[in-house]
């Protein structure tokens, strides 16, 4: 932290703010970089597991970014990928153990996907691309930013899938309370299946690109 003071760069300088807000839209890990799709499909049938998954990714990503950034000058280049993997893996095991101890139901729902955070490309990508060459504080912000970018897409997808697939929002029976079932409304079972997550993500990408033309690749 002392280096930061020397430079007198404010904690939330415009540059640092960008680190948090860019991944939310223009550099979104899911919709623009198309990373971490696998877990986005798997855990978004309900909002609660999606939220816990996003939170877990945020903890792992921010912590791994900070640790790698602190160690960046000591890590031998030849084994840097292994070092990153070991750190990510241990953080994921920690998160998994904590969930099993304090959020047992959710950890059962997420089952194997918490373990698969290790293989989430977003995390390795950020460590390699950012934390290896930046100071801890920006690395921390970058981690939080990317996890938020990942998280809000997950939550949006989960919102629509849960609402139309199970008729609930965060386990609250909206459709039932609105009395829609009495008019013959039926939950769409297809929404619960993974392919629908892909379609919802596709719709989000479509909306995003139609509003931000710069994202559209040239042919």
């Amino acid at each position, binding site marked *: 932290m002392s280096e930061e003071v020397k430079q007198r760069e404010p904690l939330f300088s415009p540059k640092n703010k960008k680190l948090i807000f860019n991944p939310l839209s223009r550099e979104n890990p899911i919709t623009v970089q198309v990373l971490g799709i696998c877990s986005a499909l798997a855990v978004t049938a309900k909002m609660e597991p999606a939220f816990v998954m996003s939170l877990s990714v945020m903890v792992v990503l921010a912590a791994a970014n900070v640790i790698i950034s602190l160690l960046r000058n*000591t*890590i*031998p*280049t*030849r*084994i840097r990928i*292994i*070092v990153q993997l*070991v*750190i990510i893996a*241990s953080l994921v*095991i*920690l998160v998994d*153990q*904590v969930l*099993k*101890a*304090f959020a*047992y139901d959710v950890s059962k729902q997420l*089952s194997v996907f918490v373990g698969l955070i290790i293989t989430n490309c977003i995390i390795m990508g950020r460590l390699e691309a950012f934390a290896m060459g930046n100071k801890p504080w920006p690395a921390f912000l970058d981690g939080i930013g990317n996890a938020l970018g990942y998280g809000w897409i997950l939550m949006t997808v989960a919102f629509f899938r849960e609402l139309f697939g199970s008729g609930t929002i965060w386990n609250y029976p909206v459709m039932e309370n609105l009395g829609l079932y009495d008019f013959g409304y039926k939950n769409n079972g297809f929404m619960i*299946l993974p392919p629908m997550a892909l379609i919802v993500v596709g719709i989000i990408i479509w909306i995003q690109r139609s509003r931000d033309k710069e994202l559209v690749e040239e042919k």
Partner: protein
Amino acid sequence: MFSNRYIFIYASVMVIVVAAILSSAATYLKPFQEKNVRTEKIMDILKSVNIKAEKAEADVMYNKYIVEELALNTDGEATSIYKDQSFEKGDIRPFDIKLKSEIKKKELLDAGKDAEQPNFPLYICNKDGETYYIIPLRGKGLWGPIWGNIALKQDMRTVYGVTFGHKGETPGLGAEIATTEFQKQFIGKTIFDDNYKFTSVKVVKGGIGTMPVDQQIHGVDAVSGGTITSDAVSKMIADCLKNYEDYIKKQIK
């Protein structure tokens, strides 16, 4: 550039530090995790007799409804009786018996190999003046273990309720055994015929319509697309209940 020596030392130190952190975290969190597993077991047992227990009150509800725990040997004799929070006989608490290892012992014995005598747990529940017998189940599904509890009425042959759980059966197919729709089918079925000959409850591919009419009381419809899991459920129920046959016959006489 970093020397080879540095790389080796770096890697070794990193591995040791990580191992230390992880093992201390695992040790510290273990009691919490075990409590969760225990609570889940209690909730599963109670669910088979139709009692919905919230997490916080699971222990209280368990002590209220489960009046007796027995451990039975293969001859149907109780080796351990645990009642009112104290041992009436033996010293193994039936609740703490790991069914998986007992089934393994039984398999070894059946194969003529050397093994300890297995003990099978039985829970006796008293709900609204009625007695129910709860038998825990465990078996092999298509992808991993499946388990459950089956509750019998006082006559010890009519099924009062069942619960099933699984580690990783195919979602939408085999995993349907965990749904109430599938489990509801078992209610009222019998595991013995009128002469108390053991028949178990079979999960029948193609539906119980394919069975002789007088046998339909011993069968339920299988899950479509989940044949192997359905067969596994049949086998699990038959294998596990068989261990209690002698005990039940003694009780009936």
